[in-house]
């Protein structure tokens, strides 16, 4: 089926190119049939990409090593769950996933808007198909997922052990969904700028997709952080790695857009700003995709150096120049319809919040690309790490939390002093009480002022959100007389954007409390322990009870059972392991291939709780086994060719038997060597960490995700109204503006 897969990709490229031409021709001439044909090209692209992706997944599922990409990224011993995920662990497969997701999301928006944004949609279709054509051409000409080998290997190289983690099944599709969804507001913004239709319509049709992009990208980032925390064995969840930053930048940009777009909807203001944000977010999403593939910046996430740099730089250059040219061209139409009435209004807070978010994007961009900039200017690639980000990001994050607390409390347009006092009294009191209590607590966090301020601000935000929910519920109950839970559900259902947003703000406060606490008050120790020995971390005693070991077809696992106690009382028992996967490097030898540390990963021993996480990882060195491994290599290097030569002269069934006997003996030898870890244990390295409130990060993320889903869900009454609305024209005369309804 590789031929069919390749043909589908070529057809996809032809269809995308045709669709661009048909859409632009239809838009220029006003011929509806060409515009419809162009839209159908997007649906066809989605169908072709889906079929091609299914063929590739099938090849991985069947372990068909005639496909080069399957041979390089999977093996017969790879669990089925991960075989399917292995498709996007490769450059080729991930490009195909990009095309698949882009075409599916594009089809969805174009189907939903088939009777709307008539003038903008054809240009948006052309832009979306342009992205489709770009990524399809990369898959056709530079990284073909359907390339085959005439002499396929008997066994594949297997999946990178670091990717053997459940979140790896979801993390890349989530990130790619976020990136591809960001191209939709980008495409419609381009269409709006080309046609000069810069009113509320393009915003209303793409707002939900911008929100979906924000949600998916956010989930992808958080899953990546969780993977880093539980899989990478360094004890953290965020390393300011270029690829992490590449996902964070468009997320920050689209967060700003989601807020400032409301000001344009309500007041007709910030049109240049919004167009710039959405074009910037779209460009940053392509930049993020490029960083993963180019290898220009060192990252553990990247696919490594590749030949895709020039096409990507060309595309990004075209996007940047084109975006600036369009905004300059339409600058007259992008003038604001209104002015900011008061600095004490929600739109002013949104504006400040936008500035903070854009400042964060600029800081992250500058520091991430500083190694490249320094290399270009001085010839020396300066490496920068997390400490370079903190002096800028920490104060900006504090300002962001403060503004996210103020926003929900004040009204649009203007407020009076009395209303301000009424709105701020409780949240400010809650923030101050939090601060005072934490300062007075013996051994509290007063030694870390930034963390302390973050806790106080979080108290302010959470109290503000609770107050707003309570006031909304009270207002609703005054009319409906519902019970509190019912009134709360009704309130949120009727005002999903508003209260979904407030819940997101509460989640952000919870998440940043977790970040502030875990980064300021982490206690860690790197220790060498023998069985029976102890280490002390932040008042906890961690004892290395005994070594454990297991051997299977897929891996050898060396681990340790650790007993954790505090003040003489048992707290928990955790097990951490280091897994060694068979390497494909012939230089490792027939026995040594099972002990190659380059092919190993960590399994963290974790006891997570609301107050603190106890995080442990073992780092087993196989050097003490080197003598035995070399001996085994030598024996089998001599013995295996003899058996193979004899087997070549035997009937097939007997030859198979002889080979099986050889591998069984080798496996027994490997198991014996591995068992030495238990029978003759040696001093082993451990990283032991006690980290407060890490769980709050994941809880905060769940709250943010829940709030995002609420805001994303269509408003039922509006949906019903739309469904029930007659298709005929209204009778003459304006309909009444809405009557007042329960909150």
């Amino acid at each position, binding site marked *: *089926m590789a*031929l*069919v897969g390749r*043909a*589908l990709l070529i*057809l996809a490229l032809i*269809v995308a190119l*045709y*669709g661009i031409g048909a859409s632009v021709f239809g838009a220029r001439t006003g011929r*509806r*049939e*060409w515009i*419809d*044909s162009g839209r*159908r*090209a997007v649906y*066809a692209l989605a169908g*072709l990409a889906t*079929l091609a992706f299914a063929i590739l997944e099938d090849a991985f599922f069947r372990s068909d090593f005639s496909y080069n990409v399957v041979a390089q990224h999977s093996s017969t011993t790879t669990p089925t769950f991960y075989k399917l995920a292995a498709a996007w662990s490769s450059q080729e497969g991930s490009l195909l996933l990009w095309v698949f997701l882009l075409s599916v999301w594009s089809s969805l928006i174009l189907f939903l808007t088939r*009777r*709307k*944004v*008539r*003038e903008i949609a054809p240009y948006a279709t052309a832009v979306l198909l342009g992205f489709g054509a770009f990524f399809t051409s990369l898959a056709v000409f530079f990284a073909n997922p359907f390339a085959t080998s005439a002499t396929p290997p008997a066994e594949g190289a297997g999946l990178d052990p670091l990717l053997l983690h459940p979140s790896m099944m979801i993390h890349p599709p989530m990130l790619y969904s976020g990136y591809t969804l960001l191209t939709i507001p980008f495409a419609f913004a381009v269409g709006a700028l080309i046609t000069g*239709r810069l*009113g*509320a*319509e393009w915003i*209303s*049709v793409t707002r939900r997709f911008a929100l979906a992009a924000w949600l998916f990208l956010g989930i992808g980032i958080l899953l990546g952080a969780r993977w880093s925390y539980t899989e990478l064995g360094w004890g953290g969840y965020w390393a300011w790695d270029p690829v992490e930053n590449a996902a964070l930048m468009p997320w920050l940009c689209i967060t700003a857009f989601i807020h400032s777009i409301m000001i344009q*909807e*309500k007041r007709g203001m910030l049109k240049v700003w919004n167009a710039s944000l959405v074009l910037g977010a779209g460009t940053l999403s392509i930049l993020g995709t490029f960083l993963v593939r180019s290898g220009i910046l060192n990252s553990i996430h990247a696919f490594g150096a590749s030949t895709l740099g020039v096409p990507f730089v060309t595309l990004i250059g075209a996007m940047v120049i084109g975006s600036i040219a369009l905004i300059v061209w339409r600058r007259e139409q992008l003038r604001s319809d209104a002015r900011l009435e008061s600095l004490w209004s929600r739109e002013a807070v949104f504006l400040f919040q936008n500035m903070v978010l854009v400042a964060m994007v600029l800081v992250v961009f500058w520091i991430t690309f500083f190694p490249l900039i320094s290399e270009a200017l001085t010839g020396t690639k300066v490496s920068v790490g997390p400490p370079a980000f903190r002096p800028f990001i920490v104060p900006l994050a504090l300002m962001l939390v403060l503004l996210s607390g103020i926003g929900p*409390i*004040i*009204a*649009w*347009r203007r*407020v*009076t002093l*009395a*209303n301000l006092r*009424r*709105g701020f009294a409780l949240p400010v009191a809650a923030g101050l009480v939090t601060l005072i209590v934490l300062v007075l607590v013996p051994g509290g966090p007063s030694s870390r002022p930034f963390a302390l301020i973050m806790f106080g601000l979080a108290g302010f935000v959470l109290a503000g959100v609770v107050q707003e929910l309570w*006031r*909304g519920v009270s*207002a609703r109950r*005054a009319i409906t007389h519902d019970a509190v839970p019912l009134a709360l559900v009704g309130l949120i259902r009727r*005002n999903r954007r*508003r209260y979904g947003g407030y819940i997101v703000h509460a989640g952000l406060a919870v998440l940043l409390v977790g970040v502030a606490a875990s980064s300021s008050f982490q206690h860690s120790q790197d220790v060498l322990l023998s069985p029976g020995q102890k280490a002390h971390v932040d008042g906890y005693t961690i004892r290395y009870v005994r070594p454990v070991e297991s051997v299977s077809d897929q891996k050898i696992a060396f681990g340790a059972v650790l007993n954790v106690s505090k003040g003489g009382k048992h707290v928990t028992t955790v097990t951490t392991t280091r897994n060694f996967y068979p390497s494909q490097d012939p230089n490792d030898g027939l026995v040594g291939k099972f002990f190659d540390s380059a092919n190993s990963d960590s399994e963290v021993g974790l006891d997570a709780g609301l107050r603190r996480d106890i995080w442990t990882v073992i780092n087993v060195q196989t050097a003490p086994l080197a003598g035995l491994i070399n001996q085994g290599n030598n024996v089998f290097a001599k013995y295996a060719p003899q058996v193979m030569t004899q087997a070549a002269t035997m009937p097939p069934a007997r030859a198979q038997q002889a080979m099986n006997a050889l591998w069984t003996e080798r496996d027994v030898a490997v198991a014996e060597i591995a068992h030495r870890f238990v029978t003759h244990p040696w001093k082993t390295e451990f990283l032991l960490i006690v980290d407060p409130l890490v769980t709050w990060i994941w809880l905060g993320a769940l709250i943010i995700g829940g709030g995002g889903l609420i805001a994303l869900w269509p408003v039922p009454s509006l949906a019903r109204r739309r469904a029930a609305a007659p298709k005929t*024209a*209204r009778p*003459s*005369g*304006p*309909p009444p*503006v*809405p009557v*007042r*309804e329960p*909150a």
Partner: protein
Amino acid sequence: MSSLPELLIVLAVVAGLVLFISAPLRRLSPPPEESADVAELEAAREAKYRELRDAELDHRTGKLSDEDYAELDTALRAEAIEILRGIDRATIERQ
């Protein structure tokens, strides 16, 4: 020889694609469509309705004083009526 079935699959896909994508070009008369001006005004109307509802909720939850709300509500309703009149004008012109 094993590539013959694959070739037939590709040919079938090509035929399906041509039929599917060219269907609108073979249509005798394009479907009637709504004016872009009306659609844009309708989007503005929806946004204005949302703004009215938001102002009302701000008032009920104590963020807007009675005087401020009355003034704001009157202004927003006037803006909404202006948009509705614009929709009517655009619809009549089109007819």
